[in-house]
């Protein structure tokens, strides 16, 4: 199926993207049927490591988001019946419900041989996966990132603190390899790991380029489409097939920019989006588009690339932290992975986040910002209100929509649409006033 974007020209790369995404789903479905070893991991686990083993790697966030897209509320209810509070992450509740009921969009639930959690960005990414491991009675490993607290005031803890964080994480990766070896009974493949590290870096740079092109004026792609491309960098970041799709979309967007083709017709309003969308209610974004409003940037998607991740911490980190060196052995792979995870996992602390969003707003020339206040996801919606205040100081209006990425019960579509209508009118009025003053 092609993306019949009636508001702009359809993307030629779309069928290619769909094929890669579908193959990923089929691969997991086949693994369930064939009894291949499956590892369920937090999205913040370094995915490069799956390259070293012949395992099927299922990202919890990806699984939860597709459950959300399918609007399978019954899974959340099952988790809640077992005592997991409604206020917790909806991805987690979807996955836990699917696990208990042993059903989901792939037919059966992918029963893992091991579960991997992460600590650092938010507490859920460890607790959720701990709950899965306890239920399955399978080994559980937690990777603990050590963010760099000195990021707020670079003068305090300096280079040594950064080095200690990277060393700390790299040492854990050594243990992690031992753990996976123990769980799967396989020897880690150094060559494949090196390839995965290099491919992931390449894909992150391609993602950066995609994000840059997205900001063009007018934007050559509808913001909504980017959320489908996200699976390439979230679930398939070490895949060569993902590189090919990213290269193709970059080429296509360059071509569209040269020809002046926009993602939506009559792009009159440029907006910033923050946090995951409600996967069950992507139609809301279509409503924005119908009003000539396109989302042209978001810190949430930018975070998957390397530019944004390293850019925010450049004042607090030495050059070597932000430079990628092609690894030649396990130890060098661990070092490169650790740098990227620490930068990504830390996610801008409040001050850095506020600075970064101001910079993005100015660079992408946005007229307004929309924040999805994601109930249960405190990691992604961290500091959203302060960000909105910061943009208000720049004269950019903001709208907060409360909901959750996977549980439709947390989102009230009617009131949200009314809020959006008022917001768009507000943005239009502010734009008109500015034009007059010019």
């Amino acid at each position, binding site marked *: 199926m092609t993306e019949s974007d009636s508001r702009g020209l359809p993307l030629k790369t779309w069928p290619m993207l769909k094929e890669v995404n579908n193959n990923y789903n089929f691969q997991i479905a086949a693994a369930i049927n064939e009894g291949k070893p499956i590892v369920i991991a937090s999205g913040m686990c370094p995915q490069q490591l799956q390259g070293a083993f012949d395992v099927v790697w299922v990202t919890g966030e990806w699984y939860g988001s597709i459950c959300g897209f399918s609007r399978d509320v019954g899974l959340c209810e099952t988790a809640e019946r*077992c*005592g*997991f*509070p409604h*206020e*917790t*992450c909806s991805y*987690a509740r979807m996955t836990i419900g699917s696990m208990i009921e042993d059903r989901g969009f792939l037919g059966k639930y992918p029963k893992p041989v091991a579960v991997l959690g992460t*600590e*650092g*960005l*938010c*507490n*859920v990414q*460890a*607790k*959720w996966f*701990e*709950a899965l*491991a*306890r239920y399955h*009675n*399978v*080994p*559980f*490993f*937690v990777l*603990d990132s050590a*963010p760099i*607290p000195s990021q*707020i005031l670079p003068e*305090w*803890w300096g280079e*040594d*603190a950064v080095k*200690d*964080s990277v060393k*700390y994480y790299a*040492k*854990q990766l*050594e*243990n992690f390899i*031992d753990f996976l070896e*123990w769980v799967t009974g396989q020897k880690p493949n150094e060559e494949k790991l090196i390839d995965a590290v290099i491919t992931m870096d390449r894909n992150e740079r391609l993602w950066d380029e995609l994000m840059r092109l997205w900001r063009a004026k007018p934007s050559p792609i509808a913001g909504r489409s980017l959320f489908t491309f996200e699976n390439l960098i979230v679930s398939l970041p070490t895949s060569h097939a993902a590189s090919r799709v990213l290269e193709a979309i970059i080429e296509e967007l360059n071509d569209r920019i040269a020809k002046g083709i926009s993602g939506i017709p009559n792009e009159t309003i440029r907006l910033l989006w923050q946090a995951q969308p409600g996967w069950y209610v992507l139609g809301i974004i279509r409503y924005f588009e119908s009003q000539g409003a396109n989302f042209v940037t978001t810190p949430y998607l930018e975070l998957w690339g390397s530019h944004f991740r390293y850019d925010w911490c450049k004042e607090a980190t030495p050059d070597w932290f932000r430079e990628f060196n092609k690894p030649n052995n396990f130890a060098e792979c661990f070092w490169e992975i650790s740098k990227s995870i620490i930068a990504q996992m830390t996610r801008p*602390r*409040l*001050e850095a986040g*506020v600075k970064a969003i101001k910079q993005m707003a100015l660079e992408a020339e946005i007229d307004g910002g929309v924040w999805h*206040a994601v*109930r*249960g996801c*405190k*990691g992604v919606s*961290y*500091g*959203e*209100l*302060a960000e909105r*205040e910061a943009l208000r100081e720049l004269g950019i209006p903001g709208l907060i929509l*409360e909901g959750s990425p996977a549980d439709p019960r947390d989102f009230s579509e009617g009131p949200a649409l009314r809020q959006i209508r008022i917001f768009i009118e507000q943005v239009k009025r502010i734009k008109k006033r500015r034009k007059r003053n010019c």
Partner: protein
Amino acid sequence: MFKELELIVNDRHNHAKQLKVRTNKGIIGYLCSYVPEEIIYAAGFIPVRLFSSEEAASLADTYMQSYYCTFSRCILHQALAGDFNYLDGLVTAYTCVNMRLAFDSIQLYGKIPFSRMIYTPGIIDDPNSKEFYYKELLRFKKDMENLSGRSINNDDLREAIKVYDENRSLVNDIFKDRRNPVPSITGKEAYIITLSGMLTDKQEHNEILKTTSKQITNRAGMKKGVNRLMIVGSPLDNLKLLDIIEDDLDAIVVTDDTCTCTRYILGKTPEENINQDPLKAIVERYLIKRPPCPTKHAQNRWLQCSSCPFRAVSCFLMNPAQKKKLPKSLIFSNPERICRFRHSLQLAINHNVEGVIVLQQKFCDPHGFDYHHVAQSFIDIGIPSIMLEIDNIISVGQIKTRVQAFLEMLQPVNYVIEPEIKEGISLNI
């Protein structure tokens, strides 16, 4: 007997202001029980813990969404309202995301001159974590030296550790009495003891405790033949809940696993480390010796399950370790208290608990995810539990009805564990 301590808890801001004038020492606020207070104390400051209040957290609404816990939102509200203006600094440990946003927001928008966040590793049993944490504490020590304008040597640290360990011992001695069939102190009094300790100079607190301890020894037992309860879960700083349980409903809280009471005082600093390197001793105490909070993970906690006295309890993972031998590189340590569930069950049995109240601070993810396993593990040994969702404001009527119904269903306790296993449970908490 507890009036002096209760006054500290109820009038905490004025107490801290007076303390500052009286002792001529700076006051450093801290947000989490993982903050190594000993280092702050050794630098010549008085660490005081920041708690929520019963005010609406209206000022926090500008920076924190309503789905962050009210405990953290209330602290931010008070900071923005200027209630903490007497503080010379603010320190937190990296534990939960709620407190992290409260800290970040205070750092940016509050008016506190100095603020630091210490990264407390999420993995507590790995030697790699200890090494990292040690370096983190060295950096923090240097910051405190710069702030105080004086260097902190090993003797200063040893002295601070001594004061803090004495406090832990004194409170522990008082708390041991709670195992008796007719305890001499109530749950509310226990909370007053620990909360006041977090809000005043530890040395002064020790002096008060010495007197209180003697008075308690001569006191008649409290509440004979009433239901014995345990509180497990999110931080509790609003004592109204205990008024409902103990005064209105005539039960008694004999122990707890919360970071504002028993979890705060358990775990002495290992003496062998104090003599060698006191900072290393602090690392050991905070990572290994104290009971963990749900945000902390022991990498191979599940490895210990096959030898756990509660191995029949369903919350544990024990099969993986039985399948095949784990590589040496992954076996870190096997300390007793590293498993939170085991620790809670042990406390419950040692105190003859008949029912458990699981406190869930609204929007507290770490405790929310643990609830299923906590409740299940207590059920497995024959202790029923009830979950109470709390906020900074206690809804007295609703809570009273729920606890009353829970008390009515309680039966005399009959722990479902093998006798030899029960004997194997350490009474030495």
